[in-house]
């Protein structure tokens, strides 16, 4: 039913899947690591190649649909457009970096560790590519389960509780989504799960209201949006840091992506009806998360709360329904993935060497690790969206849209930028400057591989900051579906 590899989407699904299964059979940690690097690198290469084939005449390379469950009318539909290509690219970059960064001897049963990560990659790419609601749901769950096992097996002390909470939250959300999917499937007279078929359904405002709620709760839990965010700080703190990188760089984007791909095109009436109320709640959540972040002493928790604020801002941008903000949010989804990946890498390197995650117990790292300090400053500046960094472009556009939508809301949400500067710079000050103590004085600087990784990420940060136009070109074919029903 689905064995062909003559197109990009199928390759992107097969590569991590095969790599993941293969990894379970490799007993040697080193070979498991190299195989994981090879498979994730090939995914990345496939995507980079696919960037040259975005034009209309290559549609057969980018869009496929295989027969799957003919009896219920579900087909294995996959599609690479501007939106999904960006997300798939981010996924491929993040996993590639993670595989290079994590040494083979750090985790017991490394082959399973890499294998589960690759399976998670398969699930994530599938979520982004799926054009069939049932396939989307399958991958949505498939992405969750490996991550649950990764965090629960290799995580911190309170891992079982924390990850279970994470699992239950997302599972309830996805069940609600399943219900909505089933309802819409039933509306198509039980013939199709396709995005196109759902798009053409005539649903009343009342139906859209409930369908929107079911979908949006699932996505809001994943992002997470205030007040459904309570699983997140604990899960980020307790998961092993490489898994947290995946969680915060890519997995939370599943929620944002879901809003763009499924919610906004399908339920325009409900979005118009509810967006103001939801935006107010999100804005409160943004400011709240930023304030909480200021008072965190644990680096991981600080980054977690900062992530809630940034994700909230992107959701806010999408819900304004202004084109500039939607494009900004789309770009920012990619940027945030890169920036937070770099932040987590720094947290990971510090934790791995010193075993400390508490900010107050660190200090003076800049003396012993000047190179790391430079990259930290760059990353931090990108995180607070300073001009010339990538996040500036994205957040500027988002705020532009919010300002058009409502001035007061823009002013209120804007507080988060100030707070963001406070906690990020505070973290740099306390971790990298100030008095060095006995542990931090012995800290050795990052090695060449890590320098290389950081350099690549830094180049990306500045490249998008200076010249975001290639991304806007990429997005151009994705916005039509998202916004058509709002412009008329």
């Amino acid at each position: 039913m689905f064995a062909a590899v003559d197109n990009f989407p199928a390759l992107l699904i097969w590569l991590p899947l095969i790599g993941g299964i293969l990894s379970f059979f490799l007993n040697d940690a080193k070979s498991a690591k190299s195989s994981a690097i090879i498979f994730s690198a090939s995914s990345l290469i496939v995507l980079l190649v696919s960037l040259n084939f975005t034009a209309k005449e290559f549609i057969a390379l980018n869009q496929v649909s295989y027969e799957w469950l003919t009896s219920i009318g579900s087909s294995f539909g996959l599609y690479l457009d501007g939106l999904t290509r960006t997300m798939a690219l981010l996924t491929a970059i993040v996993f590639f970096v993670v595989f290079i960064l994590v040494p083979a001897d750090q985790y017991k049963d490394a082959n399973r560790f890499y294998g589960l990560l690759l399976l998670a990659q398969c699930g994530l790419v599938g979520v982004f590519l799926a054009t069939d609601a049932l396939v989307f749901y399958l991958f949505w769950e498939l992405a969750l389960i490996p991550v649950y096992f990764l965090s629960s097996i290799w995580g911190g002390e309170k891992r079982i509780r924390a990850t279970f909470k994470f699992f239950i939250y997302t599972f309830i959300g996805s069940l609600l989504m399943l219900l909505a999917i089933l309802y819409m499937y039933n509306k198509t007279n039980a013939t199709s799960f396709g995005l196109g078929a759902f798009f053409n359904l005539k649903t009343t405002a009342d139906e859209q209201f409930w369908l929107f709620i079911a979908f949006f709760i699932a996505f809001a839990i994943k992002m997470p949006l205030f007040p459904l965010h309570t699983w997140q700080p604990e899960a980020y703190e307790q998961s092993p840091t490489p898994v947290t990188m995946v969680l915060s760089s890519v997995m939370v984007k599943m929620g944002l992506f879901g809003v763009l791909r499924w919610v906004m095109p399908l339920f325009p009436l409900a979005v118009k009806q509810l967006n103001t109320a939801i935006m107010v709640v999100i804005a409160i959540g943004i400011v709240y998360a930023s304030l909480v972040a200021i008072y965190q002493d644990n680096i991981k928790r600080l980054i977690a709360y900062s992530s809630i604020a940034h994700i909230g801002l992107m959701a806010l941008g999408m819900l304004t329904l202004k084109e500039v903000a939607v494009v900004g949010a789309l770009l920012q989804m990619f940027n945030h993935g890169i920036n937070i990946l770099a932040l987590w890498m720094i947290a990971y390197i510090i934790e791995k060497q010193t075993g400390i995650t508490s900010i107050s117990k660190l200090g003076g790292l800049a003396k012993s690790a000047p190179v790391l300090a430079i990259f930290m400053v760059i990353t931090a500046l990108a995180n607070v969206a300073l001009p010339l960094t990538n996040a500036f472009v994205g957040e500027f556009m988002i705020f532009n849209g919010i300002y058009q939508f409502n001035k007061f809301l823009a002013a209120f949400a804007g507080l988060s930028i100030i707070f963001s500067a406070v906690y990020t710079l505070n973290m740099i000050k306390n971790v990298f400057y100030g008095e060095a103590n006995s542990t931090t004085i012995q800290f050795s600087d990052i090695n060449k591989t890590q320098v290389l990784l950081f350099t690549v990420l830094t180049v990306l940060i500045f490249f998008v900051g200076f010249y975001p136009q290639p991304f806007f070109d990429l997005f151009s074919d994705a916005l039509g579906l998202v916004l058509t029903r709002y412009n008329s």
Partner: protein
Amino acid sequence: MNAIIISAVWGVLMMYSGFLFKSNRNINLLSILGVLILIGVTFHEFASGMPLLLIDTKGMLFHSNFGLVFLLIILVSTLIYFILSGKDIQLAGKSSSDLYALIFFILSGIAVVAGFRSLLMLFIGIEIVSIPLYVLAGSDKSNLKSNEAALKYFLMGSFSTGLMLMGIALIYGDVGSFYLDAFSTGFGVLTPLKAAGLLLILASMSFKVSAAPFHFWTPDVYDGSPSVFTSFMATIVKSVAFFAFLTLFDFGFGKMHDQWKTIVAIITAFTLIIGNITAVFQQSVKRMLAYSSIAQAGFMMLAIFAINTFAKQGMLLYFAGYSFATLGIFAVLTKMKDHSIDAFNGLAKSQPIIALSVLISLLSLAGIPLTAGFFAKYYMLLAVIREGNMMWLVILAVLCAAVSVYYYFRVIQAMYFKASASETALEFDPNFKWVMLMNAILIIVLGIHPDLILNLI
């Protein structure tokens, strides 16, 4: 149709096999051979559309494709059961040949139920299934709990049979026929006699499938019976009861669907809530599985509520998914002395293949995608949505599914994330491991491609 005779004859053969063979292994092989023959005969009847030996039953029995596929699923489950639990059947009683004979008599009853078109046949079939079960429940004669379970099961079972007989009598009094066809044509208005009969039959069927509020016997009987027979009761026998329920309410009372569906909806809701909530508090995996079987019954009740194509297709998938998964977990549980959740601690380290198989079974029971359990639940929900106007029931079912994750995942957490306290690791036969793995693979295959079963009907 021929399966009825063959399994009855094979039961007699099994009874005497104790004299023929001294080794238990040969008895087990003979039983497996019997099931294989039954599968072959049933498959032939399914493929050719004609039984080998045509018997005129005056229309009281008719094995449609739906019934034959059901029978095939049951027989395959029995085959898995014999292979996985053969050794434990021998340990359960003094002479295993008698126990095998009883199981074959049950299969004979199942074959009757699979094709009943008359209330008489339904009654006879269900009784043939039930009476040997009472004996099996009490087969551990020296154990007080097993005796208690048998007695409880017998009393409750005969009580519900009494109700059913009363219901059948009332309906016969009104319609003047035992044939299901006669109901579907003759049923226009709901007379008091019919209504009373219908309610009595509904109550007794609810007893049989352990739907709330008629579920009280289930935990005690399941807990007290030898684990190896609990596994048989909770899977194969439960599926049979549901099949009878579905056929009766579809062919027999389908015309009055609107009149009874609200009652069924309420029973379903109660079953879902009670099963799931109580299962959360169990410390013993065996008892947890007993409550989980009530919870799963709640999900299957959704099909009874909806009675449409999706419900019927989904029911078959549910039988397969639920039976395979539960048989697998019970087979492992039977081999463990301690039935508490802690006994599973660290199983992933000491027995990775067994743990993986149990993991897949548990994920299937919880309804996680890519397992058979997902599509089973999916069809149930879809069937109800298709019926319309009952969204509250669907939402309740979904919330209960979320609750069920909690208790299934406790076992997963024990196996994978907790270290074992005891030094001695459990020992399993290598063959047993591979069969468990095959069983798990079967669950995954059905989860990726449920059309394998669905396209049969």
